[in-house]
């Protein structure tokens, strides 16, 4: 609790020390504050703002731009190397109606409706999905195109075709005489071998009514049966691979022959995809009640441990106040206003009062009297004393600190 300013009581604060001068000379603030203070920060801030705004804008634009397509292997909208935007766009240019499905049920319905259905990843299909597709294929007039199916998919959809091996080197394959219209007019197919989208290309052997085409050592890259075509490599359809050899001829003709194409990309969120078997069904029948009882026991334990024995006791603490707030506040005010002369005046008058007390002068005696009384006791000249104790302006912060230290030294000299 310290004293607030006392402008209305000059009689009470009598003596020269109470008279305050407020001639504040403008200069830079203290050196330790200058580093973090306003001018530099204000200059830097616009650049920072512009940078931040640009970064945010760029991020937003990038996310919007990315939002136009879904990237993934054989995604019909993806312009990346693994996508298939090129094939889809060319097909649409050829006035083929291309529709994208992600659920087996939709694809099966399209198959029944007589559309050509391309299954981009038969290996990801569960047995239920494969059965649904097979059923639709048997019922309907639609054609089915499988991209690199595995044995399970072949067994379900095309029992006449089997996987006979893989082609791990990049190679160009030509249609043999046994192809017939299965080659769709393509003279050379190019596949990248091991570096392909799904590793090595698959080779298939046909039996019964099925035929295979573009033969390598162990089988044909393309196989066909009744309303069904098997493509041995996903790279025939990708943006990167479709332009090699006559891949485009094979793909476009195979897919566009009916004028209606369903591009079926199997997705993880397919309701048919999950087989309805979860781990819970393997638990014994007493697990549920047991778990419930354990839960109940845990609740009981929590209630028992959380018991509060009696009330929370509040302490009636007496109020206390920090007494130096006003002094510190005034100091900060002086410093922010650079009121060096006002500060110097308080320091000087305090020293003058103490010196006058020690020398036995009257408190109200003027500066001249004090200087004359001091002069014989100290090494300084009267002029120096007058500069030190009189109302000399203080140009900067360093001089104020030096003044305070000089006043200390003067008092110590008189004490000796």
């Amino acid at each position, binding site marked *: *609790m*310290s*004293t*607030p*300013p*006392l402008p209305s*009581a000059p*009689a*009470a*604060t*009598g*003596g020269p020390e*109470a008279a305050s001068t407020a001639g504040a000379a403008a200069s830079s603030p*203290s050196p*330790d504050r200058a580093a973090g203070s306003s001018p530099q920060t204000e200059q830097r801030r616009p650049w920072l703002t512009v940078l931040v705004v640009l970064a945010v804008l760029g991020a937003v634009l990038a996310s919007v731009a990315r939002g136009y397509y879904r990237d993934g292997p054989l995604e019909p909208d993806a312009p990346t190397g693994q996508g298939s935007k090129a094939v889809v766009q060319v097909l649409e240019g050829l006035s083929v109606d291309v529709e994208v499905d992600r659920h087996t049920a939709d694809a099966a319905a399209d198959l029944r409706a007589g559309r050509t259905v391309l299954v981009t990843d038969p290996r990801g299909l569960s047995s239920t999905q494969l059965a649904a597709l097979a059923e639709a294929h048997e019922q309907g007039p639609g054609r089915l195109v499988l991209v690199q199916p595995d044995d399970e998919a072949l067994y379900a959809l095309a029992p006449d075709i089997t996987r006979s091996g893989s082609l791990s080197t990049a190679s160009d394959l030509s249609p043999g005489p046994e192809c017939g219209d299965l080659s769709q007019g393509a003279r050379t197919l190019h596949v990248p071998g091991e570096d392909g989208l799904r590793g090595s290309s698959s080779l298939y052997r046909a039996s019964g009514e099925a035929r295979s085409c573009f033969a390598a050592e162990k089988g044909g890259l393309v196989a066909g049966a009744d309303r069904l075509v098997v493509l041995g490599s996903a790279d025939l359809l990708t943006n990167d691979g479709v332009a090699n050899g006559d891949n485009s001829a094979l793909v476009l003709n195979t897919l566009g022959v009916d004028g209606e194409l369903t591009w079926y990309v199997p997705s993880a969120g397919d309701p048919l995809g999950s087989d309805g078997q979860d781990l819970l069904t393997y638990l*014994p029948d*007493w697990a549920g*009640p*047991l778990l419930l*009882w354990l839960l*109940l*026991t845990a609740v*009981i*334990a929590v209630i*028992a*441990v959380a*018991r509060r*024995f*009696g*009330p929370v*006791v*509040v*302490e009636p*603490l*007496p*109020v*206390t*106040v*920090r*007494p*130096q707030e*006003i*002094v*510190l506040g*005034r*100091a*900060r005010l*002086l*410093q922010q206003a650079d009121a060096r002369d006002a*500060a110097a005046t*308080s*320091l000087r*008058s*305090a020293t003058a*009062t103490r010196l006058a007390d020690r020398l036995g002068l009257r408190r109200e005696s003027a500066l001249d009297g004090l200087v004359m009384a001091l002069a014989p006791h100290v090494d300084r000249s009267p002029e120096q004393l007058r500069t030190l104790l009189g109302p000399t302006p203080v140009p900067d*912060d360093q001089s*104020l*600190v030096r003044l*305070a*230290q000089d006043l200390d030294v003067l008092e110590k000299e008189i004490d000796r």
Partner: protein
Amino acid sequence: MRISLTPRAALVALLALPVIVLWPRWWTLLAMFVLWALVVLVDAFRAANPASIRVRRESPVQVRLGRSATGRLLLTNPTSRLGRLEVRDAWNPTAGLAAQRSTVLVPSLERRAIAQTFTPARRGEHSSRALLISSRGPWGLARRTAPADAQGRLLALHPFGSRRHLPSRVQRLREIEGLAAVHQRGQGTEFDSLRDFVDGDDVRSIDWRATARRRSVVVRTWRPERDRHVLIVVDTSRTSASRLGESTRLDAAFDAALLLTALAGQAGDRVDLLCIDRIAHVSVLGSTRTKVLHDVVAATAAVDPALVETDWELAAAAIAERSRRGSLVVLVTPVEASVMHTGLLPVAARIAKDHPLVVASVADPALEQLAAGRGDIESVYRAAAAERARAERTGVSRAFERVGAHVVDAAPDHAPQALADTYLALKAAGRL
């Protein structure tokens, strides 16, 4: 009465697991739960009734801050069952009770004691907010809890740290009174004795009649008057709430008031004490000389600062009512510029007309530390602001001196001695 579970109740519930595994039905769960609840309830009602346990408290009435006091809780079990009791004595934390909870076994028709040690950390009144007794069942699955009616109060008295300065001041007092060594020609009016004139004695004190009877010149000596009246007025308003070092300004003010009370009691003066802010809320009036210190210590123990302004007109009225002309009035209030706005100065002027008046103030030692700061520009500005504040304090105290008051302004650890010395100086000068 409340029934609560113990952790053991949860463990017992686990015993039902084999049954549930063997007959995994939902109604088995229900049956097990009902069974468990029945067992717990039976255990709870086999416990001794906590409401019939009789409690007697033997607690200390008051203790000086910084010391420890011991007390006891006596628990009597009038029931026919063994009491497995858990007791919580909910004192406020600064009462410094070593252990609030204790467990004790009280056999039927017997009595047991729980020892308690209090080391208060705060001056003032402490109390036990609740005393709860819970009684555990024989299987330890549940307990019944009931509150017991046993009021607990403890008054933590002011530490009176300045009492170590009392002997030296009493010594000075004895010198002034002349009981110990020196008889001096004081200005008191109470005749003490006659003695021979020595060089330096005031000629006005020569007793001519006695000199005429004897061959040598004889002077009269007086001693300072006894049975004077000292009225100490302590300001408990917001300015006394300042934290100076470890304690508040009010604590230092009471320290000074207590030392003065003790000293004045030794000097044979009557002391009255008044604590005042917006109302006069605590007063010690008309105590005998032997009891006054104890009364003042007890009365000031529970006084805390309040965030209000002091009504000095009210204080003046109270002083006028309680003092007669010539009695010493000691105002214990900070000498600060803010006090000037509360109208203390004219009141002080009025009091000083009729009474010797001492204004005792406890200064903030931090101000001096701030004023000595020289390191960097920030501390120099702080020093300047602190010097300004000190100059204002000097101005205020000079204003008080101008209206006739004696001002004592000292840091907390010097204020009691300074006030006592001023009192002694007034005694020596015969102003009292």
